[in-house]
């Protein structure tokens, strides 16, 4: 998927000084690489001639740290890092929170109840759609999708303690 043409993904900020996008992301990758390399070092590394299970993860962790460092070093010209570019972050997190609820509830509450709560949350709470429409759509989708997937396509979907 791509932004429509003319998307401002590469526009650089007018201000000088301060951290740049690539410096922040490069540093994060470098730190991740170092942590992965350290973790891999705990596994049997083997030898150069006979690599063990830790060998390639260690090498890749080092490589990741190296590439991350390169990104950060060469990142002076990238757009200025601003928290404002994550302005849609709260909504993104709210959407992900709904999915996290689904992960927690699916096997406890069962498929139909979980999906119903999820849709009520997205449509009614996040998007503030009219409640009557939200309720009808929620009922149709949670029951209808269960029928299609569990009954017709025989995909095993969880049933919770309540029997739904």
């Amino acid at each position, binding site marked *: *998927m*791509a932004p*429509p*043409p003319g998307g401002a*993904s*590469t526009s650089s900020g007018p201000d000088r000084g301060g951290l740049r*996008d690539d410096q922040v*992301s*490069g540093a994060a*990758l470098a730190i*991740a690489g170092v942590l*992965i390399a350290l*973790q*891999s070092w705990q*596994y049997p590394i083997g*030898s*150069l*001639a*006979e*690599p063990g*299970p*830790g060998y*390639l*993860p260690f090498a*890749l*962790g080092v490589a*990741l740290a190296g*590439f991350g460092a*390169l*990104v950060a070093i*060469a990142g002076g010209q990238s757009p200025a890092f601003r928290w404002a*570019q994550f302005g*849609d972050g709260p*909504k*993104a997190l709210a*959407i*992900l929170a*709904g*999915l996290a609820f*689904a*992960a*927690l509830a*699916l096997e406890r509450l069962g498929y139909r109840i979980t*999906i119903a709560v*999820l*849709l009520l949350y*997205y*449509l009614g709470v996040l*998007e503030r*759609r009219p409640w009557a429409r939200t309720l009808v*759509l929620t009922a149709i*989708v949670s029951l209808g*999708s269960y029928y299609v*997937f569990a009954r017709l*396509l*025989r*995909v*095993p*979907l*969880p049933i919770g303690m309540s029997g739904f």
Partner: protein
Amino acid sequence: MLETLGSLATGFEIALQPQFLAYAFAGCVIGTLVGMLPGLGPLAGISLLLPGTFGLSPTAALIMLAGVYYGAMYGGSTTSILMRIPGEAASVMTCIDGYAMTQKGRGGAALAIAAIGSFVAGTLSVVGLMLLAPPLAEFAIRFGPAEYASLLVVGLIVLAYMSGGSMPKMLAMAALGLLCGMVGMDVMTGYARFTGDVIALRDGLGIVPVAVGLFGISEIILSAAKAREVSVRQPELRELVPTGAELKASVGPIARGSVLGFLIGIIPGSAHIISSFVSYGIERRLSKTPERFGTGAVEGVAGPESANNAAASGAFVPMLALGVPSGPIPAVMLAAIMIHGVIPGPLLIAERPEIFWGFIASMYVGNVVLLILNLPLVGLFIQVLRIPYRYLYPLILTLCVIGVYAVGQSVVDIWIMIAMGFLGYGMRKLGYEPAPLVLGMVIAPQLELSFRQALALSAGDYSIFVARPVSAALLALAVILLALSVRTALTRRADWRQRLGLEERV
């Protein structure tokens, strides 16, 4: 040649069976919808449909998933032309002249040219696939672990190079992807790595939650945040007939786009995206009136649309002949047939001819289905776009939960999907490309196995990777590409990728 035709006839016997026709049709319809809806690209679409194919035979699964793939190529062009919204990335170039044609009242003709171009290119490139894959597979039967390890490394580096962005960023993503692929039990010793005592992670990260998270969830949360209502203008049926002049102007671009797209498709990378950019650049350069490009030149629709469809078929060459995916989409499709116990590789065509030839024949059938679907039924399809995104995205997310859970009956997969969605969101904001990550993840087990097997064969002597000619040639190619990127980075000169506008758009 006669043998090929005989095999193809067998393939048609399979593909024309009512049940396989139905799967091809279903795949094409779902693919067209997937291509049109923002927030669902071909990769997320195929991943979500994967659990639905578990109950099918491998041939049926492959036929349906391939239908989704090239259906999405067609569908993406519809929204690009009518609304200037690329339903999927390969259609970005079509937006420029396609939408300009719509504004001039020639949107219907642009849709028709796109569909005809896609049909011609799809059909021609299936011929290419049919002729090229069997001899390539025969050649690759002699490949040992050293060749495979080198081939996989080159695949990743070519992908990173062709994507046109910053090479260190691409390689970092490839390394991260390889590391993701190493989560779980070591292929040779069974030692558990990076599992954090979560038993479900011992089998590794699944491709479906990772692909749906990176390509689906991240796109949805970005689109939902800036959801806007769109107005769709439905073209009249009589507008769909292109004029003689439009048809004549499209012949060259369609022919060139078909050949170019197929060849680029074979090379690892986001081929369907790159091929449409390259085709647009070439058509503009070849045109006697390049100034018309951007104002509704039919060549700017015909070329890229043909190229991206041809590339979709080209990408199947390494997948079917070598068992090596050339990008994230073939990677997921390989995973799909492996679930059915089919072992991909050079022996696939010889051992399971019904899969290969049934698949080839179904692609011919699929192209006809798509031509029929996309021209007369375009009005029906765009009704879907009238559903406001605030209603649509909760439904798509519900599908993601079902699809991801159904693969392994595990909520851990939903957590992986959420984590990958979050990661993908950050990556998109900060200019990172998810394709090398997914490809790296898929090939990691095979790469690690081949690498360690090769060293076991040579008693730990690394010269095995350069002593064998095919392996040495592949590694030389990787070194050349890396050197070219370093040169570009050091001299900061615009290379061919920037001149074609790849840097900004992919």
